[in-house]
């Protein structure tokens, strides 16, 4: 798209006005095409070719493999397909737990901090800190706290008499729970932010009417606040779901490219297959499957939500 001089001609004034928005969005479109749309198309192509280490700098000679990467990923009786399925299951459980806990904490904090009391501003600001910190510094701090011999967690558990203080938190099945707690720590402030903004959008007179009717605070929360927050909740939960399902940072900063089996979140699983085994074709096939899954879930979610809100 170039700016043609014709638009300056007499009578071209209206035409120029019509084209203006396109000139304004052109840079954004070009960048999106180059960095998102084009790579996505290339990614789908990659999933059909045998793009191993030998062919990365020589992509045109990579052999066509058809659907064999997909078959490999989806053959759950083979060790490779099985570990992909396992990684998928781990990610699902991780997502449900993290989104659920983050929602609960965010909702509670928003309900409490929506009402005026002394010190409210302090808590509001404090609660934003985990979200404002660079992701990896928060995770590294937790990683230190979870060390076996010199970490805070074992120290506290031992002084409370709950364990001997010699548990490993970053290997074996405990690694999963450590990861969940860290991800909740990081993401609940986001839920809090969104829900607090949602609460501030509910007009006060709705509550006034209800309290004249004699409804207590819990009843008001149940019958007024929750339904009014529905739209915010729906968007926020979807965003949290997508971020958590695609989470790469938490497992990667904690464990590196090859996390313990219990913490083998799907993004790191694909990353490992691609950059440790250098099989980009297989990695791309798994990425495409991941995207397809996310699209189906998001589509179904929006469909159900839209139908319900239309009925309401």
């Amino acid at each position, binding site marked *: 798209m170039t700016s043609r001089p014709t638009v300056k001609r007499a009578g071209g004034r209206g035409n120029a006005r019509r084209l*203006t*928005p*396109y000139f*304004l*969005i052109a*840079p*954004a479109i070009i*960048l*999106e095409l180059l*960095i*998102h749309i*084009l*790579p*996505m198309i*290339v990614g789908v192509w*990659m999933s059909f070719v045998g*793009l191993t280490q030998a062919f*990365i*700098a020589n*992509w045109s000679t990579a052999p066509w493999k058809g659907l064999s990467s997909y078959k490999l990923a989806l053959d759950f009786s083979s060790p490779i397909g099985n570990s992909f399925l396992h990684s998928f299951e781990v990610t699902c459980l991780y997502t449900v737990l993290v989104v659920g806990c983050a929602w609960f904490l965010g909702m509670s*904090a928003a309900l*409490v901090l929506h009402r005026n*009391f002394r010190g409210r501003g302090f*808590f509001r600001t404090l609660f934003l*800190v*985990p979200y*404002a*910190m*660079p*992701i*990896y*510094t928060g995770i*590294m*701090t937790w990683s*230190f706290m979870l*060390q076996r*011999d*010199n970490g*805070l967690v074992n120290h506290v558990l031992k002084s409370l008499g709950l364990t001997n203080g010699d548990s490993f938190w970053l290997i074996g099945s405990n690694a999963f729970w450590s990861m969940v707690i860290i991800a909740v*720590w990081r993401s609940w402030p986001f839920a809090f*932010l*969104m829900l607090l*903004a*949602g609460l501030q959008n509910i007009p006060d007179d709705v509550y006034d009417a209800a*309290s004249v009717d004699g409804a207590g*605070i*819990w009843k008001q929360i149940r019958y007024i606040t929750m339904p009014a927050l529905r739209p*915010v909740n729906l968007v926020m939960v979807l*965003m949290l779901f997508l971020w958590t*399902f*695609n989470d*790469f940072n938490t497992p*990667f900063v904690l464990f590196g490219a090859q996390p313990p089996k219990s913490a083998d979140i799907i*993004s790191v699983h694909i*990353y490992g297959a691609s950059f440790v085994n250098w099989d*980009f074709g297989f990695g*791309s096939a798994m*990425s*495409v499957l991941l995207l397809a899954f996310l699209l189906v879930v*998001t589509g179904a979610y929006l469909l159900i939500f839209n139908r319900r809100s239309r009925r309401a």
Partner: protein
Amino acid sequence: MREPLSFKVFRVVILTVLTLFVLVPMWVLFTSSVKPLGDVQGKFEWWPSHVTFQPFKDIWSTVPLGKYFLNSVIVCSISMVLSVIVAIFAGYAVSRWTFRGRSVFTTTILSTQMFPGILFLLPLFLLFVNIDKALGFTLLYQTRVGLIVTYLTFSLPFAIWMLAGYFDGIPRELDEAARVDGASTLTTLLRVVLPAARPGVIAVAVYSFMTSWGEVLFASQMTSPKTQTLSIGLQSYSTQINVYWNQVMAASLVVSVPVVLAFLLLQRYLVAGLTAGAVK
């Protein structure tokens, strides 16, 4: 309205639990950064028994932290400036015009935000390697340029969304008045609309900077030892033999404090922008 006892109890419990949850890691981060190495390798202590600021000196020599810092500052600032400029134009178009393809544009841009990063990483890796090969010199693969171009698109969707929201809040009469005076679209945007949207622009800039500052996935493959940024560089305090935990914590503090402060100072604008999309 009067609060029943149960709600007061609920408030105390929630605030206590969450404050501890947030503050304990902060406390560990602060206190461990001023402990000598021996103390962070031994049994955990709530209060540092020896306070030293040596870790804050050592972090610069144990690993080339200065270089990582410089790389991060360069990459994040340039991608921030570019992303804000591109978003200002696009956001203005979305806010002021109803043009054909507008909703396709906004939906597509926002939906790329939800796609897994790994889906873009593999093809971009391949594209960068092969573009450089075709060019005959290293332009994109593991360079700052490559990283800047990539990062700039990460914050773009939200930046456009946030700015369009801010522009919506600025009365159109301002634009029209300027237009009657004979100002072109560009002049109107730069001289009239933009000054009124300054808080929004600042918020978007901070958001964009923070997004790149905390990015790990692309930084892990798209940088070389020469162009490495903080997110990956900070992991080099742990070696096979030793983890310099006090230095890890000191470096984490140095890296976090500027962005956290910026976020908290501008929280009013940032929160308004971040939540605008979901709440409206």
